[in-house]
């Protein structure tokens, strides 16, 4: 039950971010600088590739977003394990898991869209059902399902427990996606970085993308996790208020 501003102790209205701290402001600024740097290097400074030509510019955002999605889902898995382990059980882990999964879904969506545009340039089609693309799409849908499971009813503890189990199962898909290019030899190219296919300014632009997206990921997870903390607090207050109203009604009823 939502509670109104009058029912709870009102906080001061501020135009600044309600979830920000000096650390997140510095982090956010660094992420913005990183993204601007990425755009400048990716679109203007980095040269065209001999094989991929101008299409390589899409890889500077496609590869970092895919890697960050993996990282986000691994963080979700580790946080979920931390919640399930009795010694470290805390709803903070559950919120980090949820926030990281949500941000991971955003990055995975970016990876799918940019990969599709890159595919149109390189292969002539937006989509093909090869093993890398299919497993990536499956991973994306799995984590949308994870977020749906988080949205089911029940107490915070029930939400945390069932979503942690789903997260531990879902994270097993990541090796399947990553090694699909080696196991099934699909249309999708194999590792570009490890194989030394990118070098010089192209490799540097890719690293700029990875740094910028990593800063952005940390910043987004911190803010989302704090918003989740407030959502839970408001839920608890709503429940307390409903119980108090019920008790008051009960006392009035017994008084008559």
């Amino acid at each position, binding site marked *: 039950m939502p*509670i*109104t*501003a009058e029912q*709870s*102790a*009102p*906080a001061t*209205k*501020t135009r600044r*971010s*309600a*979830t920000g*701290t000096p650390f997140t402001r510095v982090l956010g600024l660094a992420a913005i600088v990183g*993204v601007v740097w990425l*755009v400048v290097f*990716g*679109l203007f400074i980095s040269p065209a590739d001999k094989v991929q*030509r*101008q*299409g390589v*510019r*899409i890889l500077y*955002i*496609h590869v970092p*977003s895919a890697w960050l999605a993996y990282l986000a889902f691994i963080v979700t898995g580790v946080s979920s394990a931390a919640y399930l382990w009795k010694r470290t059980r805390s709803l903070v882990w559950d919120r980090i898991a949820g926030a990281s999964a949500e*941000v991971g879904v*955003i990055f995975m*969506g*970016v990876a799918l*869209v*940019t990969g599709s*545009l*890159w595919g*149109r*340039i390189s292969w002539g089609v937006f989509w093909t059902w090869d093993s890398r693309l299919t497993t990536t799409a499956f991973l994306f849908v799995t984590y949308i399902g994870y977020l749906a499971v988080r949205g089911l009813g029940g107490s915070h503890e029930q939400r945390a427990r069932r979503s942690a189990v789903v997260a531990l199962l879902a994270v097993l898909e990541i090796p399947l996606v990553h090694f699909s290019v080696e196991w099934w030899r699909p249309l999708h190219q194999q590792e570009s970085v490890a194989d030394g296919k990118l070098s010089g300014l192209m490799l540097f632009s890719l690293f700029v993308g990875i740094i910028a997206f990593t800063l*952005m990921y940390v910043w*987004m997870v911190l*803010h*989302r996790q*704090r*918003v989740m*903390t*407030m*959502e839970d*607090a*408001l839920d608890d*207050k709503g429940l307390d208020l409903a119980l108090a109203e019920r008790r008051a009604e009960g006392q009035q009823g017994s008084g008559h």
Partner: protein
Amino acid sequence: MDHAGFIIASYVLTIGGIVVYVWRVLSRGRRLAEQLPEEDRPWI
């Protein structure tokens, strides 16, 4: 630049998507903060 439309679209969609998500998270945070006392925001 060959395929400029696809390349620029990929950057615009990426940055635009992230900006929309960040804006939604921050505005939800502001709305919630108006209904909660400061002790419910331990990071302050």
